[in-house]
């Protein structure tokens, strides 16, 4: 009792207490058990960029192989593994995780809270992603890389034609990464809906948080479809089920429906966060409010919604009835409307702003020009007759890279230049950044614009070589040169990032005069994010910041506690204790890894692994002794 009274008399320094409550234990085990959203987010981002570079190396190998006719750098067996791993890496190991990683890092900061809603689930998600990602690459390096394309159409990927364990590696990599994506999505949804700073009603949520919320909801609907499909494929291959066998009365097209029902929304899962990046960067660097906040949110919601209704446009050549095709053409054209509105809103925002051409903004400009072309070719491939001609040709290779690199990677690079000071406390070099953005832009168009022409000239996708007589050589050569320019641009940014970690100028808390709550705390933020939990009275709290803006009082600082607010108006509701660093997520992820990887070889891995996972969960949910002070208070 004395101790408690003394504490009341002499309030301890909250900063020291917060530091003790939120900092992970030192050492390797502390690092492995870290559940801080900033640590997990940084790991997601770093790992995803490592795989981006690896996937890029594969792309350069492919470009070298195709630089001239009858290339013989690699044979068809290697080439098939390379292009499959390139696609799978970029989609599953880079694009989705990096967007989610930024979400994990930024969303709690933007919402003014101290961690995500489920920190251990967050760590578990990261470890499963890491295991799955490494697994795919170990497969490639041991000549067991998947070789049926990132879409793994049966029967080529089925038990009869997809020989060995290559496709199984792919199928279980999908299971790993989608499990991880679901873990993050659930986390971000719960965090956004329940942990906003008081006053941050739904109509004041920062635009990137909206984007990541919408993406997360899409993930929740899309990922189970592909996990189910990959599970069905794996069991077809391992225990001779007949999900996709034409001979036994099923249909190979079932796979295509299940896959594209996921894989088209996947594109928007990658693209919508990029919309959030662009909105954030434009607001910060044009220094004005976003024109049409509600319209922007609605356009993202609409995009996400329609994104689930267009998957059949990947299957126009399979011979579906014409009426159905017209429906999906209409839906695919429809999706251009919200995107168009979004573009007009940005133009209006720029119109009334005062633009500062920092590197982040240059990437947004590059995004505009590039994504617009990708969107227009998207309208072309939505039309059935045109799609029948250009489907599965280099025209589509060009289209998808315009949309995914132009639409998602350019904003992402902009986001790196914008938020890097927040993540590390240091500035990236602007001159190197501008040089890199120009090289990336020029290299990109040099690589991919000629591919439109190649597709129209009849060059199909996924060919490991072509004949001299086709005349495709010179355009391919141009594309290869472009790919290396693009690679050089990326390499400059890589060097810039590495050097800036140590040599970059000190950033301070708000180098860009940004608008969001993340700029009101130190760079990099302390483990508890905010010394006092902020409250909010409008959409741009860092710009308004009235001197009398209240802060949250009453959340304990001597243990990791978070404030829970109401769903719509973000009124303070109650406090909750969140988990501190623990090894349980890692253990459970390892058990999950044993299950998934083992199930490639024997069905017994599933019950065995289920037991291991259960053990991990027992450790995870083992009841903790109640907090000592609560015991003291409860004592009569």
């Amino acid at each position, binding site marked *: 009792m004395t101790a408690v009274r003394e504490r009341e008399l002499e309030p301890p320094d909250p900063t020291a207490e917060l530091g003790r409550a939120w900092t992970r234990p030192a050492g390797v085990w502390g690092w492995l058990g870290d559940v801080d959203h900033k640590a997990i987010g940084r790991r997601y981002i770093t790992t995803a960029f490592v795989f981006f570079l690896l996937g890029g190396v594969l792309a350069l190998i492919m470009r070298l192989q195709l630089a001239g006719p009858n290339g013989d750098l690699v044979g068809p067996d290697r080439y098939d593994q390379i292009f499959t791993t390139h696609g799978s890496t970029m989609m599953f190991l880079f694009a989705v995780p990096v967007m989610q990683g930024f979400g994990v890092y930024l969303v709690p900061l933007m919402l003014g809270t101290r961690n995500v809603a489920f920190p251990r689930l967050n760590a578990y998600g990261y470890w499963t992603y890491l295991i799955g990602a490494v697994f795919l690459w170990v497969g490639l390096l041991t000549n067991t890389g998947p070789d049926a394309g990132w879409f793994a159409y049966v029967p*080529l990927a089925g038990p009869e034609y997809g020989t060995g364990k290559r496709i199984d590696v792919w199928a279980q990599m999908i299971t790993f990464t989608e499990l991880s994506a679901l873990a993050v999505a659930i986390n971000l949804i719960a965090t956004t809906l329940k942990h906003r700073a008081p006053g941050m009603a739904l109509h004041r949520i920062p635009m990137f948080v909206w984007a990541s919320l919408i993406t997360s909801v899409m993930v929740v609907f899309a990922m189970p479809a592909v996990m189910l499909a990959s599970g069905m494929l794996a069991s077809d291959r391992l225990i001779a089920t007949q999900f996709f066998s034409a001979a036994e009365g099923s249909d190979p097209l079932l796979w295509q429906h299940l896959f594209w029902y996921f894989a088209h929304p996947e594109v928007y899962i990658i693209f919508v966060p990029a919309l959030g990046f662009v909105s954030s960067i434009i607001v910060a660097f044009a220094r004005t409010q976003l024109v049409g906040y509600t319209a922007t949110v609605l356009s993202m919601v609409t995009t996400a919604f329609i994104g689930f209704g267009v998957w059949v446009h990947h299957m126009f050549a399979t011979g579906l009835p014409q009426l159905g*095709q017209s429906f999906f053409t209409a839906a695919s054209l429809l999706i251009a409307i919200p995107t168009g509105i979004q573009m007009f809103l940005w133009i209006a925002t720029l119109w009334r702003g005062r633009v500062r051409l920092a590197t982040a903004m240059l990437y947004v400009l590059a995004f505009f020009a590039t994504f617009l072309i990708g969107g227009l070719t998207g309208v072309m491939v939505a039309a059935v007759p*045109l799609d029948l001609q250009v489907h599965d040709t280099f025209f589509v290779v060009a289209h998808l890279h315009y949309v995914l690199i132009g639409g998602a990677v350019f904003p992402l690079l902009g986001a790196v230049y914008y938020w890097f000071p927040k993540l590390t406390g240091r500035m990236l070099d602007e001159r190197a950044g501008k040089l890199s953005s120009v090289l990336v832009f020029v290299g990109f168009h040099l690589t991919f614009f000629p591919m439109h022409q190649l597709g129209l000239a009849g060059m199909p996708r996924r060919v490991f070589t072509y004949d001299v007589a086709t005349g495709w050589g010179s355009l391919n050569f141009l594309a290869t040169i472009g790919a290396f320019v693009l690679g050089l641009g990326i390499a400059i940014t890589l060097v810039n990032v590495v050097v800036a970690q140590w040599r970059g100028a000190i950033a301070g808390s708000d180098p860009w005069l940004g608008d969001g709550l993340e700029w009101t705390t130190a760079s990099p933020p302390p483990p508890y994010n905010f010394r006092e939990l902020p409250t909010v009275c409008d959409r741009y709290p860092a710009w308004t910041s009235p001197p009398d803006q209240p802060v949250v009082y009453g959340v304990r600082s001597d243990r990791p506690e978070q404030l829970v607010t109401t769903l719509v108006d973000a009124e303070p509701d109650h406090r909750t204790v969140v988990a501190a660093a623990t090894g349980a997520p890692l253990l459970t992820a390892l058990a999950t890894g044993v299950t998934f990887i083992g199930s490639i070889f024997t069905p017994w891995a599933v019950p065995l692994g289920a037991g291991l996972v259960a053990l991990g969960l027992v450790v995870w949910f083992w009841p903790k002794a109640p907090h000592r002070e609560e015991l003291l208070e409860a004592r009569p």
Partner: protein
Amino acid sequence: MTDPRISVLDPAGPQAATIASLWDVFLWISIAVFVLVIASFAVATGRAVGRRRRDGDGDPLAEDPVSERRMIRGIVLAGTVTVVTLLALLIASIRTGSALAALEDDAGALHVRVTGRQWWWQIEYEHDDPPHSATTANELHIPVGRTIHLELTSADVIHSFWVPSLHGKKDLIPGRINRTWLRIDEPGEYLGQCAEFCGLEHARMAITVYAEPPEVFSAWLAHQREPAAPPADGQAVRGLAVFTGSPCVLCHAIAGTSAGGRLGPDLTHAASRARLAAGALPNTIGNLAGWILDPQSVKPGSHMPATSLAPADLHALLAYLEGLR
């Protein structure tokens, strides 16, 4: 320059021509949209960059209700134009779709069955009397001016039939039969290639379409329906014996002999075809010898095994195969 025999924009028949004119509509509208959007984007950005250079950062929260209203009007207008344009494109697309379907009603269409196999095309001209059916590989001969009805299926994995100058692609799916209709107006040679990734040799699965005047086509088909030419001389007689006594016979058929394998291309009129191994090599005697002795160096992964033959046997076999016109 790229080969005009394999080009979406050099149509040789009504189907591809219809699609090419739809392409023009989409292309020009896209260019117009691109120019308009990029111009307004550039003007907006340029103005904003200039304002910042002139006035500095300013108050980000300043509002101007008049310009706000004007902007909203502009956005609504641009949105309306977008919707109308898309609607027009949708209608154009659907009309093109119906135009493409017009050939389906032609009762006088020539029926050809195309089966995709790893990694070649089997092409069958059926006849009411099955022995008179003609089977060939990797070459589709069709008469100009007549509707062709292709029945497409696959014997193994999914392939896709695509001859850009004639029509869009259609998948060949195991367990399903797809159909496509096309017509060629210009006699000539058109190239196509499998368009759905189908495994190792997807890149070397080409098809050549020969559009011929009806009388030339009829003569060709009548010849293809004939059994193989009997061996012309002693060397060729020995070649036939080599063929039927070697691994060739388990996979390849030659009508009129005891060879009846159905796994590889039908060789009844093999020497009349211009290329070997689904377009991989010109059909010359040297290439043929190389292909028989070591197919894996030409098409790694192909299901054709290497066959080792004594030189005399090989020459006899080549002499016989060269006679299969």
